[in-house]
């Protein structure tokens, strides 16, 4: 019987494939949703749980939290670096700046301090930690994607989501981070000052005292003004590093957010109280924001569950219809089998064997789809979540 059933399925591979695909997809929707959301919530919760507080510009708490955790979501605005100093001066917490307004080949460029790496448990797998302006560390997955190793260089993208910068900056890759299976794997890290250079706040150029007179617009005793012909450095090297400088007060320089690590629960409570009514900045608790976000996601999932149930029921009904129609079309075949001496039970077993083959193939296809989703799904979901702003 199994052989005959298999021959039937193989001969009618077109219709069988359609049926298998329909069954697999109908089952895939609820299974994949369950698996992916389960994985997403674990990932979101685990990263949020080790990020006690985040400070940033007043606006969407979700955007700020996702930006601080994943570096991709847009923030309502930047905050001045002085906020980090202010938190540090309070003595209640350590603040780690994050300046993630720019990208390198579409990979987030995160300007921070060396405190970030022990805080996230990150270690350098190859090369060394950045130490100079213009140096960067690349996350494990990002390194694979960009195809870089220590000693290579990367150009920053000229278009950020904040504004158009005039020139790309060439970054020197000095190390590759060990894989952490977190969003840190998908980012490029550098000193926060390097981001300010990318931003255009800091720059390096030819020594004005040594350039040709025609480059200069005005020359006074205390002040020299140069024109656009002055050569700006797009790469920071040991030779030109000394020429790089910043205009303005560093306390006013922008960062997109800062991680705040309170000394203890009491310090956390005091900080939250102190910042809760600030007119421009906000201090948020990522675990709380993530729970609120997940609550929304699961409300949507309940709707999806109902939809999946309806799709499942309709698919089963359609499958039954297909089988009944198929049996009508096969009436002549069944009559032949009976005339030759086939028992009704044997014919029923033949049909059952065919259905088992179809169900097995559908289960196999479902397993493949789920495996693909398991592998690529969290990234896709995270991308979707961040693109839609949570």
């Amino acid at each position: 019987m199994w052989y005959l059933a298999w021959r039937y399925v193989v001969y009618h591979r077109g219709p069988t494939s359609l049926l298998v695909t329909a069954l697999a997809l109908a089952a895939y929707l609820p299974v994949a949703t369950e698996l992916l959301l389960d994985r997403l919530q674990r990932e979101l919760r685990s990263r949020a749980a080790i990020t006690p507080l985040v400070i940033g510009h007043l606006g969407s708490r979700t955007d700020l939290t996702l930006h601080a955790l994943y570096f991709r979501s847009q923030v309502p605005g930047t905050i001045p670096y002085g906020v980090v100093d202010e938190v540090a001066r309070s003595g209640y917490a350590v603040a780690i700046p994050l300046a993630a307004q720019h990208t390198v080949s579409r990979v987030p460029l995160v300007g921070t301090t060396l405190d970030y790496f022990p805080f996230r448990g990150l270690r350098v797998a190859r090369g060394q930690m950045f130490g100079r302006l213009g140096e960067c560390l690349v996350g494990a997955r990002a390194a694979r994607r960009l195809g870089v190793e220590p000693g290579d260089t990367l150009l920053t993208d000229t278009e950020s989501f904040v504004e158009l910068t005039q020139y790309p900056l060439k970054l020197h890759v000095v190390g590759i981070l060990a894989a952490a299976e977190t969003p840190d794997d998908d980012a490029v890290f550098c000193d926060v000052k390097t981001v300010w250079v990318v931003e255009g706040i800091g720059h390096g150029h030819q020594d004005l005292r040594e350039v040709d007179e025609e480059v200069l617009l005005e020359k006074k005793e205390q002040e020299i003004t140069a024109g656009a012909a002055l050569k700006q450095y797009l790469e920071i090297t040991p030779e030109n590093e000394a020429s790089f400088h910043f205009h303005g007060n560093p306390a006013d320089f922008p960062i997109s957010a800062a991680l705040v690590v309170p000394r203890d629960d009491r310090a956390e409570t005091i900080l939250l109280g102190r910042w809760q009514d600030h007119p421009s900045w906000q201090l948020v608790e990522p675990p709380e924001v993530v729970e609120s976000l997940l609550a929304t996601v699961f409300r949507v999932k309940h709707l999806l569950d109902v939809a999946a149930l309806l799709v499942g029921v309709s698919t089963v009904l359609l499958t039954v219809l297909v089988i009944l129609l198929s049996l009508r079309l096969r009436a002549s075949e069944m009559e032949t089998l009976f005339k030759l001496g086939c028992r009704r039970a044997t014919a029923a077993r033949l049909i059952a064997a065919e259905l088992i083959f179809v169900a097995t193939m559908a289960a196999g296809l479902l397993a493949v789809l789920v495996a693909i989703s398991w592998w690529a799904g969290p990234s896709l979901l995270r991308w979707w979540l961040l693109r839609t702003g949570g």
Partner: protein
Amino acid sequence: MSEDASNTGRPEAAVRGAEVDSAHGSSAGPGVRVAELEFAYRRTSFQLRIPRWEVAAAKHVAVTGPSGSGKTTLLHLLAGIFLPDAGAIDVTGVRVDMLTDAQRRRFRLERIGFVFQDFRLLEYLDVVDNIVLPYRIGRSRRRNSDLRERAAALAEAVGIGDRLRRNVQRLSHGERQRVALCRALIGEPELILADEPTGNLDPRNKHQIMELLHEHARRLQATLIVVTHDTGLVSEMDSVVDFKDWMGV
């Protein structure tokens, strides 16, 4: 299968050569024996009545008659596909009308070879698999390789030995009827029933198929009953039964 049926062996050689029957004739030997047979389809006016008919074992008989006279119905009754409303049907010593449904199915598988006018091959199987189909649906314990060897030998004998792995959809009508013939013969039946086996074939194939039927029925010492409209095919038969003789009985 009842004890009675299962213990019944193949026809003895002694019954061969028995006198040919007419519609009302009689003969010795456990070939086919029908007595006081009555059958009617529900909700129709059709009625088949055969007072008495006997075919000696190993004889080749043609059944002719007008369309709708009940020729195909008779074959179905002999094969145990239909049950008579009254009367007795004895095939190779087995009272087919007394068997249960399951016993009749097994009886068909083991003792009857049926050749249909429209071939009735399974489109999703190749030549070999169609030939061994009765074994596959009969839960045979025969080894697959043995079955295939027998099927190949039969196919070779009827001239389609080079088509074994070909799907039956890709065969000519003549080739398909050869496959159907092999399927009927694979179980070495004691009774071969052929319902208009040449109805869909050209003259050349008609004679070839009939020759093959006769040849293999003789080899198996099987009784052959062929329903046909074609009077040109009855000359090689041991006898001819005309349904007109039974109509109005």
